[in-house]
């Protein structure tokens, strides 16, 4: 009986959280299209999320390209299809692996950062102070961060994909004597708009999800300093899960429209 009630409690709190997140999203869109717009804060957040994540994304992408090529090469060699390596790597990275891996990396870095920052502001009553001083904290803190994450993630993914392809080209050049020109010729011969456009579009949703969950968890943080850590942690966990759900939906829709 006790277990059942705990399940009911957990389920109701889950739906409650989903509902609150829905309201939070609705408020975001309302605030987004109302003046004034905090452009300076938006640029600052873009810099924090974009430029500060660039090194992490680049290193991750480069290693991703290297490792993916090194792992795939023996299998393709076994089938006598080593010449298909650029096509396979490029389609895999551009379509799926690049956006998902880089989004997960950004969820870890950006999501946790937003959750911790807003959570600490909430527990130290800075957000309340902003409300008292007449500043709209939601517009200043939440809208700018979600919009920055939405805008910067596609750019980070594009750069990450490009660096991953360079890493793969280096391995192909070393292991298979494939020139960079030939490699990128084969990459662009294999890629179609149906690979690039849906993959890029879904990164906007990934960025939006990272910003939204991070802001929601941080903005609604409670229970003192422990709540900050919890907000930060749950932001990363929930975002990661949400990214896979969004990816599935994106692939499902792409499959309906393009195949």
């Amino acid at each position: 009986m006790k277990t059942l009630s705990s399940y009911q409690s957990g389920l109701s709190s889950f739906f409650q959280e989903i509902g609150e997140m829905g309201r939070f999203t609705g408020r975001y869109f309302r605030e987004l299209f109302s003046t004034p717009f905090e452009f300076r804060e938006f640029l600052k957040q873009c810099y924090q999320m974009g430029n500060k994540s660039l090194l992490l994304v680049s290193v991750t992408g480069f290693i991703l390209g290297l490792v993916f090529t090194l792992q795939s090469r023996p299998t393709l060699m076994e089938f006598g299809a080593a010449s298909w390596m650029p096509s396979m790597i490029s389609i895999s990275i551009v379509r799926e692996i690049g956006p998902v891996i880089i989004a997960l990396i950004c969820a870890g870095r950006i999501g946790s950062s937003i959750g911790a920052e807003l959570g600490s502001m909430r527990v130290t009553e800075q957000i309340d102070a902003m409300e008292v001083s007449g500043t709209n904290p939601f517009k200043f803190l939440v809208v700018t961060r979600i919009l920055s994450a939405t805008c910067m993630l596609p750019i980070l993914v594009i750069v990450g994909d490009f660096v991953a392809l360079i890493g793969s080209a280096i391995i192909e050049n070393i292991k298979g004597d494939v020139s960079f020109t030939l490699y990128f010729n084969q990459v662009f011969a294999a890629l179609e708009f149906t690979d690039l456009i849906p993959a890029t579009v879904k990164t906007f949703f990934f960025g939006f999800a990272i910003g939204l969950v991070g802001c929601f968890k941080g903005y609604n943080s409670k229970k003192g300093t422990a709540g900050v850590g919890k907000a930060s942690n749950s932001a990363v966990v929930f975002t990661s899960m949400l990214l896979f759900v969004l990816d599935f939906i994106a692939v499902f829709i792409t499959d309906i429209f393009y195949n």
Partner: protein
Amino acid sequence: MKSNSVQNIKLGVLIVTGLIIFTLGVFFIGNKQNLFGDSILVSSVFKNVNGLQSGNNVRYSGVNVGTVKEIKFLNDTAICVDMLINREAGNLIKNNSLATINSDGLVGSMVLNILPTNQAPSPTIQEGDTLASISQVATADMLNTLNKTNENAALLTEDLLKITNSINSGEGVLGDLLKDKILAKNVQESVENLNETTRAARSGMTKLNGILNKVDYENSVAGLLLSDSSAQNSFRIIIADLQTASTQIKEISADLGQFSNNLNSEKGALNYVVKDTSFVNQLDQSMENIEEATHRFNQNMEALKHNILFRGYFRKLERQKAREEKQN
């Protein structure tokens, strides 16, 4: 304030870099599909497009010159394939070229190949032209043929199996060859004989080589016979004469045979002479009589020399003889 502007510059660089990479990607992919360049729209009509899709490459002499734009049914047996071809490449493609659909490798996607023809010169393709098409053997057709070949191979192997089983069980000539021990022994002996013959032939050839090596081709008759080309005609004449002579000898021997037959037959004088023993006795008697008659005739002649009527004649002969001796 300065820090903010530096941050904005860095952010701007990142955004511009990302947009450039994205734009380049879009450009290269679009360029591959002839979306940005100047292109010519031409079409071709096929009965079967073998899975060709919009966006597949169009190749001219193996070079990618465009992409398939659209595939549409004209009626239940004709499918129109529209293709975009680079203006630059289009200036080289003649409008009597042939379009065909092939597979790009065994498991690759389909490609539309434009094949140049060796027919009379013709103008290059223009916007809206329709190229003639030829249908190639599709993979399914190849597999069907391969299937038939496999069935035939299966029948052949079945027959071969029967033959080998028969041979193994000793049936037929081949079975005898393989199973019969006597025959095997005979074959073995034959092979041994053959070996011996070969050995003898080798020895003979060695000796012959030795003889030929000893021939002085420049000074000996054999050398002359073997090496002098001028003697060829003489030999030819000699051989012809020999042939004539042998023909004549043959005729003579035939005549002699006939003569001998005639001789052996009881008719004719010679057979009488040769075979009749009483005749021989008579002949002996006659010869004795002739000898005696000759002897008496000589006596008569000697007596005649001493006769007064003929003495002068004989003395005249003696004087003439003496005169001739004296003159010599």
